[in-house]
C-alpha cells in the first residue's frame, strides 16, 4: 500500500478535522430558524410551560432514538443516504432517494428565506430604518395609502420586499433586488460547501457559534427592556388544561421531529465522514439536548422583546386615549397619567357618559397585545422589526438580529446541501477527473435558477406551499420507513452488534424498545393525525390584498385545483420513490432468477466493511 503523507484519507473519503467540528455541524444543522420562530410560538399558544411536557416526552421517545439511528447508520455504512440505504437492502434504496429528493426541495426554498433575511440585513445600515417610516404618496399630500392603512413595517415587508400579488395565481414579475440577494446567498452557500465538509467544517465554527453570542446579547438587552417580565410571565405560565387537547401532542411531536432535521439524509452524510469507532450514542444525545436547550434559550429573548413590544403598544394606546380625553375636556397637561387612567375613566364615565361615548375610545388591554401571537416569517420580519424600531440604537440591533438569523439558516443549509452533495458524489455522476468544486458549483447554479421562481410576486405563497407540503409529510413517511427498515429488514440484533462495535457497548433496553416498537408506532400515529388534520379543511392561504374590504386583515382564499394538485405532487414525490425503487428492484431480481446466473447478495456488517 502506498500511503501518501499529505492526504489524511485511508479509503479516499474526506474526514472531519476533529470531533468538535462534526458535533458542531450536526448542532448547526438541527438548530435552525424553527428554533427561534416556531418553538416560542408553540409554547405561547399551547399553554406556556405546560407545552414542555409533551415536548420532552416526544424528545425522549421519538427524537433521540431516530437521531441515534441516523447517526449510527451513517457512521457504520460510511455512505450518503442513497448509498447507505442501498447497502442495508436494495429494496430500501427508495428511502435514500426519497430523503435526497426532500433535501433538494427544501434547499430550493430555504435559501429564499435567507434571501429575505439578507435583504433586511443590507437595509439595516440606513438611518432611519426603511421600515420605520411610510413613504409619501404620489402628490406628496399625505402618506402612501397602503402604508397608512396597515403599518410601515407591514408595508416594507409586503410591498418593498416581496412586492406581493393579491393571489397565488398571479405570478407578478421577477423582483430584481431579490434576485441579487438570492445570487449572493447561493454564492455564500457555494463558498462554504465548495469542497464538501473540508470547507463547511471551517465555516461552521463561525455560523454555529455566532447565533449563541447574539442570543446572549439579546437576552441581556431584552431583560432590561420595560415590559419584558410581562412577556416572559405570559410565555411560561403553565396552563395544564391545554394538555387535554390532542393537537398539542401532535404539535410537540412534529416540532421535535422537524426541529432535529431528521430524515433529510444530511445527518447520515455528516456521520459518514466519521471514523468508524466513534461513540454515536453520546453524540445523538448531545445534539438532541443542545437543540432543545437552544429552543428554550432562544424563546427567552424572543418573549422579552415581544413583551416589550406589547407593553409599548399598550402605552401608545393609553396615550392616544389620554390625549383625546384631555383635548375634549380641556384638562391641563399631565393631569391624566397612565397610572391613574383607569381612575379618571371611571370618574368621567360616571359624570359625563355621553361625552366619553362620543369620543369612541379604543379599549386598551395588555393581554390583547400579548395575545397577538405570530410565528414564522411574520415574527422575524414584522413583529421583531417593529420592536427593533422602538429600541435605542435600532440599526445595531437590526444588524445583529439579521446576522443571527442568517447564521442559523446557513448552517442548516450546509446540512441540506451535504444531503444532496454526498450521494451525488458517491453515485459518481461526473467522471473522476472533474473536481468536486465543479459538482458543488453545478448544484448551486441549478438550485439558484430554479429558486428564481420564488422571487416572483407570488413567491412567498409558493414558499408556504413548499414548506407545508414538501417539508413536512414526506419526512414523516421516510422516517417511518427508516425505523422499520433498520428494525425489521436489517434486524435490530445485527444493528445492535454494529453499534456495539462502534461505541464499545451494546445499546441498552431503552434503545431496543424505542427502535423496535415505540418510535415506529409514534411516527405512525403522528402521520395519521397529520394527514387527518390536513384533509379536514380545504387548503387555504391568507393573501395580502390592498383592495380587500377588511384590509389590513389578510384575505382567506382557497387554493385553485391546479395548485392543490401541485401540493399533492410535492407531498407524494419523495414518498413514491420508496415503493417504486422496491418494485424496480423486485423486477430486476425476478429477471435475474430467470437467468439462473444468480449470485446471492452478500451479507453486510459494519465490521466487515471496515476491517
Amino acid at each position, binding site marked *: *500500500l*502506498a500511503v*501518501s503523507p*499529505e492526504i489524511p484519507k485511508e479509503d479516499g473519503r474526506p474526514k472531519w478535522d476533529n470531533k468538535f467540528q462534526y458535533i458542531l455541524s450536526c448542532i448547526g444543522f438541527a438548530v435552525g430558524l424553527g428554533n427561534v420562530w416556531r418553538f416560542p410560538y408553540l409554547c405561547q399558544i399551547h399553554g406556556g410551560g405546560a407545552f414542555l411536557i409533551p415536548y420532552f416526552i416526544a424528545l425522549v421517545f421519538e427524537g433521540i432514538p431516530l437521531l441515534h439511528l441516523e447517526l449510527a447508520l451513517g457512521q457504520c455504512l460510511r455512505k450518503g443516504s442513497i448509498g447507505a440505504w442501498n447497502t442495508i437492502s436494495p429494496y430500501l434504496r427508495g428511502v435514500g432517494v426519497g430523503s435526497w429528493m426532500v433535501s433538494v426541495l427544501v434547499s430550493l426554498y430555504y435559501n429564499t428565506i435567507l434571501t429575505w433575511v*439578507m*435583504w433586511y440585513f*443590507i*437595509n439595516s*445600515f*440606513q438611518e432611519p430604518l426603511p421600515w420605520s*417610516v411610510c*413613504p*409619501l404618496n404620489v402628490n*406628496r399630500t*399625505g*402618506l402612501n395609502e397602503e402604508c397608512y392603512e396597515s403599518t410601515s413595517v407591514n408595508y416594507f415587508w409586503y410591498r418593498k420586499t416581496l412586492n406581493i400579488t393579491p393571489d397565488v395565481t398571479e405570478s407578478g414579475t421577477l423582483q430584481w*433586488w431579490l434576485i*441579487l*440577494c438570492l*445570487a*449572493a446567498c447561493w*454564492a*455564500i452557500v*457555494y*463558498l462554504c460547501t*465548495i*469542497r464538501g465538509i473540508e*470547507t463547511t467544517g471551517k465555516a461552521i465554527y463561525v455560523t454555529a457559534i455566532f447565533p449563541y453570542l447574539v442570543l446572549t446579547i439579546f437576552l441581556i438587552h431584552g431583560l432590561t427592556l420595560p415590559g419584558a417580565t410581562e412577556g416572559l410571565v405570559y410565555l411560561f405560565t403553565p396552563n395544564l388544561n391545554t394538555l387535554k387537547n390532542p393537537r398539542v401532542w401532535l404539535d410537540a411531536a412534529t416540532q421535535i421531529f422537524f426541529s432535529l432535521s431528521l430524515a433529510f439524509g444530511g445527518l447520515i452524510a455528516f456521520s459518514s465522514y466519521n471514523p468508524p469507532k466513534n461513540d454515536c450514542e453520546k453524540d445523538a444525545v448531545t445534539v438532541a439536548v443542545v437543540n432543545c436547550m437552544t429552543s428554550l434559550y432562544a424563546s427567552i429573548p424572543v418573549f422579552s422583546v415581544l413583551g416589550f413590544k406589547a407593553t409599548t403598544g399598550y402605552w401608545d394606546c393609553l396615550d392616544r386615549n389620554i390625549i383625546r380625553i*384631555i*383635548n375634549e375636556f*380641556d*384638562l*391641563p*397637561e399631565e393631569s391624566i397619567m397612565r397610572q391613574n387612567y383607569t381612575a379618571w375613566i371611571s370618574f368621567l364615565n360616571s359624570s359625563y357618559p355621553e361625552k366619553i361615548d362620543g369620543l369612541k375610545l379604543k379599549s386598551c388591554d395588555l393581554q390583547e397585545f400579548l395575545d397577538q401571537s405570530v410565528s414564522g416569517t411574520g415574527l422575524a420580519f414584522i413583529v421583531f422589526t417593529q420592536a427593533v424600531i422602538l429600541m435605542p440604537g435600532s440599526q445595531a440591533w437590526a444588524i445583529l438580529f439579521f446576522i443571527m438569523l442568517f447564521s442559523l439558516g446557513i448552517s442548516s443549509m450546509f446540512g441540506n446541501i451535504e444531503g444532496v452533495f454526498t450521494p451525488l458524489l458517491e453515485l459518481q455522476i461526473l467522471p473522476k477527473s472533474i*473536481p468536486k*468544486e465543479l459538482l458543488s458549483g453545478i448544484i448551486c447554479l441549478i438550485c439558484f435558477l430554479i429558486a428564481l421562481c420564488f422571487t416572483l410576486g407570488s413567491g412567498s405563497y409558493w414558499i408556504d406551499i413548499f414548506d407545508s407540503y414538501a417539508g413536512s409529510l414526506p419526512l414523516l413517511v421516510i422516517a417511518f420507513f427508516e425505523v422499520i427498515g433498520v428494525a425489521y429488514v436489517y434486524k435490530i440484533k445485527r444493528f445492535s452488534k454494529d453499534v456495539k462495535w462502534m461505541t464499545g457497548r451494546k445499546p441498552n433496553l431503552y434503545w431496543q424498545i424505542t427502535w423496535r416498537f415505540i418510535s415506529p408506532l409514534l411516527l405512525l400515529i403522528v402521520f395519521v393525525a397529520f394527514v387527518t388534520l390536513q384533509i379536514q379543511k380545504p387548503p387555504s392561504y391568507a393573501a395580502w390584498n390592498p383592495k380587500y374590504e377588511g384590509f389590513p386583515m389578510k384575505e382567506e382564499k382557497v387554493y385553485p385545483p391546479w395548485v392543490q394538485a401541485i401540493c399533492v405532487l410535492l407531498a407524494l414525490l419523495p414518498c413514491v420513490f420508496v415503493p417504486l425503487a422496491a418494485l424496480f428492484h423486485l423486477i430486476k431480481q425476478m429477471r435475474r432468477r430467470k437467468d439462473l446466473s444468480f449470485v446471492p447478495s452478500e451479507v453486510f456488517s459494519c465490521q466487515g466493511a471496515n476491517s
Partner: protein
Amino acid sequence: YAWDANEEYLFKAMVAFAMRRYSSKSTTQISNVLLCNVTDRVSFWFVVTDSSKNVTTVPGSEVEAAIRMNRNRINSAFLLSDKTLQFLKITSTLSPPVEPSTPVWLIVFGVVLCLIVAGILLLVVAGIRQGKTKNKQSTERENLEEKGEVAVTVENGIPCEALDLKAGHINGVFAADDERFTSL
C-alpha cells in the same frame, strides 16, 4: 415652561409677525391679535383684527395661509413642533424623506458580494494549485519509480535496500504476541 401672560404676548407677536410677512404690509400690531377662551389645557381661540378697516376681522383663510407660511418660525419660537403645537384646520405639509443618490443598500450589497466573490476565487485558485502540486508529486514519484526499476528493485515503493536495513530489527510487539500463543 408654564403658560403665562408673557407667553401669550409672544404668541400675539408671532401671529402679528406672520401676518406682516404674508401680506407684506406693516400695519398689523400686536394689539390686533385677540385671544379668548384660554383654558388650562393651553388651548384658545384667536382672531386678527384689521385696524385700518374699522375693526373687522381678517378672514380666516388669510390667517391660515399666513401661519402655514411661517409655521416653523412659530414652532421654534415656542420650542415646540408640529405635533405639540396644533392649529386646528391647518395640516402640516410633510417633508419628503431624504433619498440619497445611490440607495444605501446597494452599496452594502456590493461590499458583501465583492467579499464573497473574492473568497470563492481564492478557494478555487488554491484548489487548482493543490491539484497541480499533487499531479507534480505523483508524476515525480512515477518518474522515480521508472528510474528505480532499472537500478533498484522496489518493493511497494520502498527500495529493497532500505527494507533490508529494517529487517534486522525485531519488532517487539509481534514478538510479544508470538510468545502468547501456546506452541502446538
